[in-house]
């Protein structure tokens, strides 16, 4: 980032002096004001749909204390994890598609048509294939994860510097060694990017995934709270999803820095 001379504009100078989370805190205060002062004035019942942060906080504390939030969170995380293990199949598939042109030519049209179909739309067919229960929920999450990992792996392979492949061949490496020792390794940073995107999308597919057959999970909690008009629980669920999604992403970024110390995108 090439920041400009900070001294130039008084507004910027003022912004510079703000503590880091000022905007976030401001937003929360505004929300509190709207939900507990302004909304009730225009219609005393609107706050049902937009509970003030204080009430959300109380509800959150309650849900945490009763263990409910933890229970749902754990259930969702477990589903994510299982789905992720299956979604990792996108890595070898992506390697094959990225490396062997004819395989790419055959499979790419299929991938391209399947990719934009929303996970939600797969629910009926997935019930047919997996029945109801965890496998079906996991499948929906899996769909969200699979394509980003696949696309990034293919892309990562396509972007492997040809000179590295030539170097390996020139040092006597055969086809298989080239794929395993060079292509896979060189594509790894982008595969990891794919994993990050995939985990994000998979996490966002939670609500859709837990629409059917689940009786636990954050998505279920939200869907269920809707049916009893508990917007406070919905907001707690949303914030939990948002926050945990953020934490997962940060952990992954951290892990990448540790595990792929040589990666360019980490160097900067």
């Amino acid at each position: 980032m090439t920041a400009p001379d900070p001294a130039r504009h008084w507004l910027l100078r003022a912004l510079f002096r703000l503590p880091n989370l000022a905007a976030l805190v401001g937003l929360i205060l505004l929300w509190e004001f709207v939900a507990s002062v302004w909304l009730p004035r225009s219609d005393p019942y609107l706050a049902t749909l937009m509970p003030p942060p204080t009430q959300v906080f109380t509800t959150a504390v309650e849900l945490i204390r009763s263990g409910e939030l933890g229970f749902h969170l754990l259930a969702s995380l477990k589903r994510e994890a299982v789905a992720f293990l299956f979604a990792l199949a996108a890595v070898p598939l992506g390697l094959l598609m990225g490396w062997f042109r004819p395989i790419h030519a055959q499979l790419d049209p299929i991938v391209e048509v399947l990719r934009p179909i929303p996970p939600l739309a797969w629910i009926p067919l997935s019930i047919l294939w997996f029945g109801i229960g965890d496998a079906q929920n996991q499948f929906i999450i899996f769909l969200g994860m699979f394509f980003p990992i696949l696309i990034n792996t293919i892309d990562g392979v396509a972007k492997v510097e040809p000179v590295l492949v030539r170097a390996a061949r020139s040092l006597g490496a055969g086809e298989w060694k080239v794929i395993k020792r060079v292509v896979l390794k060189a594509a790894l940073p982008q595969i990891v990017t794919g994993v990050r995107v995939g985990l994000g999308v998979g996490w966002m597919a939670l609500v859709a995934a837990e629409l059917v057959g689940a009786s636990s999970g954050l998505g279920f909690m939200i869907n269920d709270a809707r049916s009893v008009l508990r917007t406070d629980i919905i907001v707690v669920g949303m914030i939990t999803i948002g926050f945990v999604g953020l934490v997962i992403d940060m952990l992954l970024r951290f892990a990448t820095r540790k595990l792929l110390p040589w990666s360019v995108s980490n160097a900067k």
Partner: protein
Amino acid sequence: MGRLSIENVSKIYGDPASEGAVVALRDVSLDIPDHAFCAILGHSGCGKTTLLNMVAGFERPTFGEVSIGGEPVSRPGWRNTMIFQEYALFPWMNVAENIEFGLEMKKLPQQEREEARRTYVDLVGLQGFETKYPRQLSGGMRQRVAIARALAVCPEVLLMDEPFAALDAQTRGAMQDELVRIWRREPKTVMLVTHSIDEAIKLADKVVVLSRRPGRVKDVVEIGLERPRDEDHADYIALRRRLRELIYDDFDERS
């Protein structure tokens, strides 16, 4: 064993019959004895890299044949290994692992591999840097790793495509001296592509000058000077003038 012979080689890109075909090289013949150091000089686009690629086995001649020690070259491998301008080190391997890569491919046992690695780390003077990753090294040090990695597989022919072009002037000078030192301790048949007349004179036994596209052998100049070579020596200056004339002879275009 490492005698390199290039016989009536032509390379045409694209369908030879079509309009868009590019004749990169025409009827090139060269004979480089075992352990000789040969430099290739020529304008941009005259086919130097193409020639090297065919010797390295990355491409096949459209006509003619390349052979090393009497055996035709059919694919890339350690016998005719290449050092690239961009170093082409594997960024995910440290120095030791990079150097050992080729040895692993040759399926050498662990112990031999480590011994060889030590030898070549010493040879290029990188003791103490074994566990560093390429991006932690300077340009010159990376180039040394690339050289060590290539030498470690004991190639019969060592190919280099403008290996020093990415280095700054001082480092380049130092690396040239280094290369000569290493080559003298461990003689190989070397084929080095360069744009720099000085580099060619400083390093090679034999300088091959290619003409503009389509590349043909314009002349082969033998450098009879003692090593290390003195830039200010009269013979050196004469050779430089001769090569400059050969090169600029048909250099009319401006860029």
